[in-house]
């Protein structure tokens, strides 16, 4: 149905009124043209048109859910800090400290590690309350492979879904088909092959997995260096070596070729998993990450508001040691965290699923690390 621009919006005290809009119309450039409304947002899978690729120049109205639009928000988050929050109050503290987005969840990773139990998607009520309270983007986690949790989060109009290894896996073989959604997804990766597999599924933003909830940066550093090193190696290969490189990475050839040509990932890659201090944020930025997720590191520390603001400034001025020194001063204790990651029974980072190389058979003999692997591969194998 058609409508008239409502005439009862009169900005009386600023002299801006409908009459001014009428006069302003007389200028030489055409008003933005739209032939028809193009995309009707429907909640049913059946009607969900997948828009891909082309950059808006086919002349027909507004297109949502294109890859440019999905990846575009990640680009706007670059150089920023995304903080885990569990309630409205924490979300407000995060925004006031300079977070570029918040990740809404019911339990932060450190608590999931400690308390166990199945970790699932948050209650939509909490998500809507947080969206209502802040003006920055709000993200939320869905279990790996749980496409219905993703549908629900999309219906909540969440800004980004994190298909997260921190929650209990819902599908130990397949990830979510992220191409089928209009909402963008962020996924974790430990290496280039995993990164490209997630991109093939449709993820619009990446992050390192690190080891969440430990306050220990070692795994995030490992994953960042692995990804960056593998990219550098690809760029040194000759073109005909890329086929085998794709096979060994277990990633699609076209994506491998694109990375080899451009020397970088096709999407934004943030640091995540174990960032606890301004120095941690800065090292990840200097290792080539585009921004930082901070989870347990903020609200498990002694002085969350101050630490959050310090990490934000460190992420901006990551190359300036004087500023880093200043923001690291007088913050109070950081989260205690876990130093012996390999000895810890909880292992988020290795959750990927689809271990095709074993194809349902028992994996070959290997040295087992810790309680998790012993339990997974059985006590008849060599035990650490």
């Amino acid at each position, binding site marked *: 149905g058609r409508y008239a621009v*409502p005439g009862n919006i009169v900005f009386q005290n600023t002299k801006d009124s409908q009459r001014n809009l*009428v006069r302003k119309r007389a200028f030489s450039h055409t008003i933005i043209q739209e032939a028809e409304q193009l995309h009707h947002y429907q909640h049913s899978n059946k009607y969900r048109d997948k828009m891909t690729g082309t950059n808006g120049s086919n002349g027909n109205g*507004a*297109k949502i859910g294109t890859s440019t639009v999905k990846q575009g928000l990640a680009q706007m988050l670059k150089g920023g800090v995304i903080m885990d929050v569990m309630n409205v109050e924490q979300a407000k503290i995060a925004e006031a400290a300079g977070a570029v987005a918040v990740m809404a969840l019911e339990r932060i990773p450190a608590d999931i590690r400690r308390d166990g139990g199945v970790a699932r998607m948050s209650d939509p009520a909490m998500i809507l309350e947080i969206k209502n309270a802040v003006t920055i983007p709000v993200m939320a986690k869905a279990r790996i492979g749980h496409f219905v949790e993703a549908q629900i989060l999309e219906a909540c109009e969440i800004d980004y879904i994190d298909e997260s290894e921190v929650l209990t896996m819902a599908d130990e073989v397949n990830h979510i088909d992220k191409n089928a959604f209009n909402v963008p997804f962020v996924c974790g990766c430990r290496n280039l092959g995993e990164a490209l597999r997630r991109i093939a599924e449709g993820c619009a933003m990446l992050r390192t997995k690190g080891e969440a909830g430990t306050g220990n940066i070692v795994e995030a550093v490992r994953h960042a260096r692995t990804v960056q090193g593998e990219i550098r190696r690809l760029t040194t290969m000759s073109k005909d070596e890329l086929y085998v490189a794709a096979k060994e990475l277990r990633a699609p050839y076209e994506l491998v070729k694109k990375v080899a040509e451009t020397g970088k990932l096709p999407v934004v890659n943030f640091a995540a998993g174990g960032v606890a201090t301004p120095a941690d944020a800065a090292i990840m930025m200097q290792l080539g990450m585009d921004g930082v997720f901070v989870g347990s590191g903020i609200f498990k520390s002694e002085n969350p508001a101050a630490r959050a603001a310090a990490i934000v400034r460190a992420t901006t001025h990551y190359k300036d040691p004087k500023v880093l020194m200043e923001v690291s001063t007088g913050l109070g204790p950081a989260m205690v965290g876990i130093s012996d990651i390999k000895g810890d029974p909880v292992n988020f980072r290795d959750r990927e699923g689809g271990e095709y190389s074993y194809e349902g058979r028992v994996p070959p003999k290997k040295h087992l690390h810790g309680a998790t692997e012993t339990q997974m591969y059985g006590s008849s194998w060599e035990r650490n």
Partner: protein
Amino acid sequence: MLSFHEKKVKIGVLALQGAFEEHQSCLEASDKHCTTVQVRTVAELEGLDGIVFPGGESTAMGLIGTSNGMWDALKEKVIGSKLPTWGTCAGMILLAERCVGASAVIQDGQSLIGGLNVLVCRNYFGSQISSFEMETPPPPSLSSDNEAAEESAPFPGVFIRAPAILSVDQNDDIEILGKVVATPCRQAAVVLRELERKIEAGENVVQMGVVDALDRKSHPHQIGYIDVKKEPATTINSTASENVSANRAEEEKKDVTILEEEQQEQKQNTSNIQLPGASDSTNAREVICAVRKQNILCTAFHPEITSDTRWHSYFVNMVREDSVRRSN
């Protein structure tokens, strides 16, 4: 003797946060005599011929920038020295003097730079699910004679959680370069309703934070958004305050009629864009998404994440013209 197009220019891109690298790539790709630098400190502002405020989060930029003296230095450059400045999305918010839908949790409100006397509404179209791509008018042509076909082709506008300019100061010599008719999202509709209440109460609104937009009472186990429905235009008198004289009401009615007639004319060409999360279509209005005032250019959309560099060429030209003018 260098020709105009060969005169080198150095453009800074504010790098406190956001998509600044993308602007650097596009500026340098659009013009081989343009170099760019990232700007995070006051010292890095020296020697620039122009500056770009990139897309990102305006709240974060304000908090980071006010902690190291950048903010006052930027105000001096943009408003005092009238350095050519281009703000995209968050950058547009920073350059506005009045903002609604601002952050409600930052002490003393969001820090803005100002320079453009416009009223901007943050997150007008909604969350990321409502971000969209749409053809927009190209930038004003740089060539003096007939516009080449490529130059006048529509521009791929990418709107990411975009703001929108609700109104411009009539007396302020602001050139409007693009508009769209759109329904605000449900949260923005509630913000705009609150804005109207304040204006009717006689308040001069400079910055207004987001307000509670949730309806928690209708269903015990559900939360939804407040449903804002506006009265149709013909009942304008019912919302007029006592200060509005009968004559003025008459004039307003006439203007509304003019507006409605123009709207009728364009019905074949334009329609309200339909986005997820939109409020009731009675809230729809025309909003402005590209403006220029002298040295300041603003776009609500993001040319830097497309491969079309016409807006970047337009801005480099703005910078070069200003630089030539200053050196003469």
